[in-house]
Protein backbone atom coordinates (compact mmCIF):
# COMPACT_ATOMS: atom_id res chain seq x y z
CA UNK A 1 0.00 0.00 0.00
CA UNK A 2 1.53 3.27 -1.11
CA UNK A 3 1.28 6.26 1.15
CA UNK A 4 -0.54 9.26 -0.35
CA UNK A 5 1.60 11.81 -2.16
CA UNK A 6 2.74 14.69 0.03
CA UNK A 7 0.63 17.49 -1.38
CA UNK A 8 -0.27 19.37 1.78
CA UNK A 9 1.37 22.59 0.58
CA UNK A 10 -0.89 22.66 -2.44
CA UNK A 11 -3.83 22.04 -0.12
CA UNK A 12 -2.93 25.08 1.97
CA UNK A 13 -2.37 27.20 -1.12
CA UNK A 14 -5.75 26.17 -2.50
CA UNK A 15 -7.66 27.08 0.64
CA UNK A 16 -5.68 30.29 1.04
CA UNK A 17 -6.91 31.29 -2.41
CA UNK A 18 -10.52 30.33 -1.64
CA UNK A 19 -10.75 32.14 1.69
CA UNK A 20 -8.59 35.03 0.51
CA UNK A 21 -10.69 35.73 -2.56
CA UNK A 22 -14.01 35.55 -0.73
CA UNK A 23 -12.65 37.78 2.03
CA UNK A 24 -11.26 40.34 -0.41
CA UNK A 25 -14.57 40.44 -2.25
CA UNK A 26 -16.56 40.94 0.94
CA UNK A 27 -14.20 43.69 2.14
CA UNK A 28 -14.53 45.27 -1.27
CA UNK A 29 -18.34 45.15 -0.96
CA UNK A 30 -18.25 46.75 2.48
CA UNK A 31 -15.85 49.37 1.15
CA UNK A 32 -18.32 50.29 -1.55
CA UNK A 33 -21.28 50.12 0.83
CA UNK A 34 -19.97 52.55 3.44
CA UNK A 35 -19.30 55.65 1.27
CA UNK A 36 -22.70 55.37 -0.41
CA UNK A 37 -24.59 55.05 2.86
CA UNK A 38 -22.67 58.06 4.16
CA UNK A 39 -23.46 60.03 1.03
CA UNK A 40 -27.12 59.25 1.48
CA UNK A 41 -27.38 60.84 4.92
Amino acid at each position, binding site marked *: *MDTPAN*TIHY*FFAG*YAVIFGSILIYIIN*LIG*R*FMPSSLAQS
Partner: protein
Amino acid sequence: MGQKPKALTILDWITGILFITAILGVFFYAPLEAVMGWVQKVFYFHVAAGWTGMLGFLVSAVAGVLYLVKKDPRWDRIGFAGVEIGMVFMLICIITGSIWARPIWNTWWTWDPRLTTATIMELIYAAYLLLRQGVEEPDRRARFGAVYAIIGFISVPLTFLSIRIFRTIHPVVIGSNDPGAAGAFDMTPRMMQVFMFSLVAFSFIFADILWHRIRLGALADHVEQKKIQLQTWGE
Protein backbone atom coordinates in the same frame (compact mmCIF):
# COMPACT_ATOMS: atom_id res chain seq x y z
CA MET B 1 -33.50 51.86 0.95
CA GLY B 2 -34.95 50.57 4.21
CA GLN B 3 -33.50 48.78 7.18
CA LYS B 4 -31.75 45.48 6.71
CA PRO B 5 -34.52 42.85 6.50
CA LYS B 6 -34.72 40.30 9.27
CA ALA B 7 -34.71 37.41 6.82
CA LEU B 8 -31.33 38.59 5.52
CA THR B 9 -29.84 38.54 9.01
CA ILE B 10 -31.14 35.01 9.48
CA LEU B 11 -29.70 34.02 6.10
CA ASP B 12 -26.34 35.53 7.13
CA TRP B 13 -26.25 33.32 10.19
CA ILE B 14 -27.36 30.15 8.41
CA THR B 15 -24.77 30.76 5.70
CA GLY B 16 -22.02 31.33 8.23
CA ILE B 17 -22.85 28.15 10.12
CA LEU B 18 -23.12 26.08 6.93
CA PHE B 19 -19.81 27.44 5.64
CA ILE B 20 -17.95 26.68 8.85
CA THR B 21 -19.48 23.21 8.99
CA ALA B 22 -18.43 22.61 5.37
CA ILE B 23 -14.87 23.69 6.17
CA LEU B 24 -14.73 21.40 9.20
CA GLY B 25 -16.18 18.59 7.10
CA VAL B 26 -13.58 19.02 4.39
CA PHE B 27 -10.66 19.34 6.80
CA PHE B 28 -11.51 16.65 9.34
CA TYR B 29 -14.43 14.47 8.27
CA ALA B 30 -13.55 13.69 4.65
CA PRO B 31 -11.05 10.84 4.33
CA LEU B 32 -7.64 11.38 2.80
CA GLU B 33 -7.57 10.20 -0.80
CA ALA B 34 -5.19 7.24 -1.23
CA VAL B 35 -3.12 8.47 -4.18
CA MET B 36 -3.36 12.25 -4.32
CA GLY B 37 -3.29 12.97 -0.60
CA TRP B 38 -4.23 16.33 0.84
CA VAL B 39 -4.52 18.27 -2.39
CA GLN B 40 -7.59 16.22 -3.30
CA LYS B 41 -9.45 18.12 -0.59
CA VAL B 42 -9.27 21.25 -2.72
CA PHE B 43 -11.69 19.47 -5.02
CA TYR B 44 -14.74 19.99 -2.78
CA PHE B 45 -14.63 23.76 -2.79
CA HIS B 46 -13.18 23.88 -6.31
CA VAL B 47 -16.31 22.28 -7.75
CA ALA B 48 -18.56 24.22 -5.37
CA ALA B 49 -16.98 27.51 -6.49
CA GLY B 50 -17.47 26.55 -10.13
CA TRP B 51 -21.09 25.71 -9.37
CA THR B 52 -21.57 29.08 -7.68
CA GLY B 53 -19.98 30.84 -10.63
CA MET B 54 -22.34 29.12 -13.05
CA LEU B 55 -25.28 30.02 -10.81
CA GLY B 56 -24.22 33.67 -10.96
CA PHE B 57 -24.02 33.67 -14.76
CA LEU B 58 -27.32 31.81 -15.03
CA VAL B 59 -28.97 34.38 -12.77
CA SER B 60 -27.58 37.20 -14.92
CA ALA B 61 -28.94 35.66 -18.13
CA VAL B 62 -32.39 35.04 -16.64
CA ALA B 63 -32.44 38.52 -15.10
CA GLY B 64 -31.43 39.87 -18.53
CA VAL B 65 -34.48 38.28 -20.17
CA LEU B 66 -36.75 39.51 -17.38
CA TYR B 67 -35.34 43.02 -17.61
CA LEU B 68 -35.98 43.20 -21.34
CA VAL B 69 -39.56 42.01 -20.79
CA LYS B 70 -40.45 44.02 -17.67
CA LYS B 71 -38.09 47.03 -17.84
CA ASP B 72 -37.82 47.00 -14.05
CA PRO B 73 -34.41 48.31 -12.87
CA ARG B 74 -34.48 45.73 -10.11
CA TRP B 75 -33.76 42.99 -12.66
CA ASP B 76 -30.80 44.96 -13.96
CA ARG B 77 -29.33 45.11 -10.45
CA ILE B 78 -29.84 41.38 -10.01
CA GLY B 79 -28.16 40.67 -13.35
CA PHE B 80 -25.19 42.87 -12.54
CA ALA B 81 -24.84 41.31 -9.09
CA GLY B 82 -24.97 37.83 -10.64
CA VAL B 83 -22.14 38.64 -13.05
CA GLU B 84 -19.94 40.11 -10.34
CA ILE B 85 -20.35 37.19 -7.95
CA GLY B 86 -20.05 34.72 -10.80
CA MET B 87 -16.72 36.22 -11.82
CA VAL B 88 -15.31 36.06 -8.29
CA PHE B 89 -16.24 32.41 -7.81
CA MET B 90 -15.27 31.33 -11.32
CA LEU B 91 -11.87 32.87 -10.71
CA ILE B 92 -11.56 30.91 -7.45
CA CYS B 93 -12.51 27.78 -9.39
CA ILE B 94 -9.86 28.38 -12.05
CA ILE B 95 -7.06 29.17 -9.59
CA THR B 96 -7.79 26.25 -7.27
CA GLY B 97 -8.04 24.00 -10.32
CA SER B 98 -4.63 25.17 -11.37
CA ILE B 99 -3.20 24.51 -7.90
CA TRP B 100 -4.68 21.02 -8.01
CA ALA B 101 -3.35 20.39 -11.52
CA ARG B 102 0.25 21.19 -10.63
CA PRO B 103 0.95 18.06 -8.52
CA ILE B 104 -1.51 15.79 -10.34
CA TRP B 105 -1.10 16.64 -14.03
CA ASN B 106 2.36 18.07 -13.44
CA THR B 107 1.45 21.35 -15.09
CA TRP B 108 -0.22 24.57 -13.98
CA TRP B 109 -2.26 24.84 -17.10
CA THR B 110 -3.64 22.71 -19.90
CA TRP B 111 -6.01 23.63 -22.71
CA ASP B 112 -8.68 21.34 -21.45
CA PRO B 113 -12.32 22.16 -22.39
CA ARG B 114 -13.48 23.08 -18.90
CA LEU B 115 -10.45 25.18 -18.06
CA THR B 116 -10.61 26.95 -21.39
CA THR B 117 -14.36 27.48 -21.21
CA ALA B 118 -14.11 28.85 -17.66
CA THR B 119 -11.42 31.27 -18.81
CA ILE B 120 -13.43 32.37 -21.84
CA MET B 121 -16.38 32.94 -19.50
CA GLU B 122 -14.26 35.25 -17.38
CA LEU B 123 -13.36 37.15 -20.55
CA ILE B 124 -17.00 37.35 -21.66
CA TYR B 125 -18.06 38.84 -18.34
CA ALA B 126 -15.04 41.14 -18.23
CA ALA B 127 -16.33 42.43 -21.57
CA TYR B 128 -19.76 42.78 -19.93
CA LEU B 129 -18.26 45.01 -17.23
CA LEU B 130 -16.40 47.09 -19.84
CA LEU B 131 -19.60 47.49 -21.83
CA ARG B 132 -21.47 48.75 -18.77
CA GLN B 133 -18.63 51.10 -17.95
CA GLY B 134 -18.75 52.59 -21.43
CA VAL B 135 -22.42 53.56 -21.26
CA GLU B 136 -23.48 56.41 -19.00
CA GLU B 137 -27.22 56.52 -19.42
CA PRO B 138 -28.65 54.08 -16.82
CA ASP B 139 -31.53 52.83 -18.96
CA ARG B 140 -29.38 52.11 -21.97
CA ARG B 141 -26.66 50.58 -19.77
CA ALA B 142 -29.22 48.17 -18.36
CA ARG B 143 -30.55 47.20 -21.79
CA PHE B 144 -27.08 46.59 -23.23
CA GLY B 145 -26.03 44.63 -20.17
CA ALA B 146 -29.12 42.44 -20.42
CA VAL B 147 -28.58 41.75 -24.12
CA TYR B 148 -24.92 40.91 -23.66
CA ALA B 149 -25.59 38.71 -20.62
CA ILE B 150 -28.03 36.68 -22.73
CA ILE B 151 -25.75 36.41 -25.76
CA GLY B 152 -22.73 35.55 -23.60
CA PHE B 153 -24.50 32.87 -21.62
CA ILE B 154 -25.89 31.16 -24.72
CA SER B 155 -22.44 30.99 -26.28
CA VAL B 156 -20.95 29.12 -23.33
CA PRO B 157 -22.29 25.60 -24.10
CA LEU B 158 -21.26 25.96 -27.74
CA THR B 159 -17.79 27.08 -26.71
CA PHE B 160 -17.54 24.11 -24.39
CA LEU B 161 -18.72 21.75 -27.11
CA SER B 162 -16.30 23.13 -29.68
CA ILE B 163 -13.33 22.70 -27.38
CA ARG B 164 -14.61 19.34 -26.13
CA ILE B 165 -14.23 17.87 -29.57
CA PHE B 166 -10.51 18.34 -29.05
CA ARG B 167 -9.84 15.59 -26.51
CA THR B 168 -9.96 16.14 -22.77
CA ILE B 169 -7.85 14.97 -19.85
CA HIS B 170 -10.07 16.53 -17.20
CA PRO B 171 -11.37 13.90 -14.78
CA VAL B 172 -15.11 13.47 -14.92
CA VAL B 173 -15.77 12.62 -11.31
CA ILE B 174 -19.53 12.34 -11.44
CA GLY B 175 -21.54 10.25 -13.82
CA SER B 176 -18.76 8.70 -15.83
CA ASN B 177 -15.97 6.22 -15.22
CA ASP B 178 -13.30 7.05 -17.71
CA PRO B 179 -10.13 5.41 -16.44
CA GLY B 180 -8.09 7.31 -19.05
CA ALA B 181 -8.51 10.68 -17.36
CA ALA B 182 -5.57 11.38 -15.06
CA GLY B 183 -6.54 12.26 -11.51
CA ALA B 184 -9.93 10.55 -11.56
CA PHE B 185 -10.96 8.86 -8.35
CA ASP B 186 -13.91 7.03 -6.88
CA MET B 187 -15.68 8.94 -4.16
CA THR B 188 -16.29 7.12 -0.91
CA PRO B 189 -19.66 7.76 0.79
CA ARG B 190 -18.02 10.19 3.20
CA MET B 191 -16.44 12.14 0.35
CA MET B 192 -19.80 12.24 -1.38
CA GLN B 193 -21.47 13.63 1.77
CA VAL B 194 -18.87 16.36 2.17
CA PHE B 195 -19.05 17.15 -1.53
CA MET B 196 -22.84 17.52 -1.54
CA PHE B 197 -22.71 19.52 1.66
CA SER B 198 -20.14 21.91 0.14
CA LEU B 199 -22.43 22.44 -2.84
CA VAL B 200 -25.33 23.31 -0.53
CA ALA B 201 -23.15 25.59 1.60
CA PHE B 202 -21.84 27.44 -1.44
CA SER B 203 -25.36 27.84 -2.81
CA PHE B 204 -26.27 29.55 0.46
CA ILE B 205 -23.16 31.74 0.24
CA PHE B 206 -24.22 32.67 -3.27
CA ALA B 207 -27.77 33.58 -2.21
CA ASP B 208 -26.50 35.58 0.76
CA ILE B 209 -23.90 37.58 -1.15
CA LEU B 210 -26.34 38.10 -4.02
CA TRP B 211 -28.89 39.60 -1.68
CA HIS B 212 -26.32 41.92 -0.13
CA ARG B 213 -25.01 42.89 -3.55
CA ILE B 214 -28.52 43.69 -4.84
CA ARG B 215 -29.13 45.94 -1.82
CA LEU B 216 -25.83 47.65 -2.53
CA GLY B 217 -26.87 48.13 -6.16
CA ALA B 218 -30.18 49.66 -5.08
CA LEU B 219 -28.35 52.03 -2.74
CA ALA B 220 -25.85 53.04 -5.44
CA ASP B 221 -28.68 53.72 -7.92
CA HIS B 222 -30.47 55.78 -5.29
CA VAL B 223 -27.35 57.88 -4.67
CA GLU B 224 -26.82 58.33 -8.41
CA GLN B 225 -30.39 59.60 -8.82
CA LYS B 226 -29.97 62.00 -5.91
CA LYS B 227 -26.80 63.36 -7.48
CA ILE B 228 -28.55 63.94 -10.79
CA GLN B 229 -31.37 65.72 -8.95
CA LEU B 230 -28.89 67.93 -7.10
CA GLN B 231 -27.17 68.81 -10.36
CA THR B 232 -30.42 69.76 -12.02
CA TRP B 233 -31.35 71.93 -9.04
CA GLY B 234 -27.98 73.62 -9.14
CA GLU B 235 -28.45 74.74 -12.72
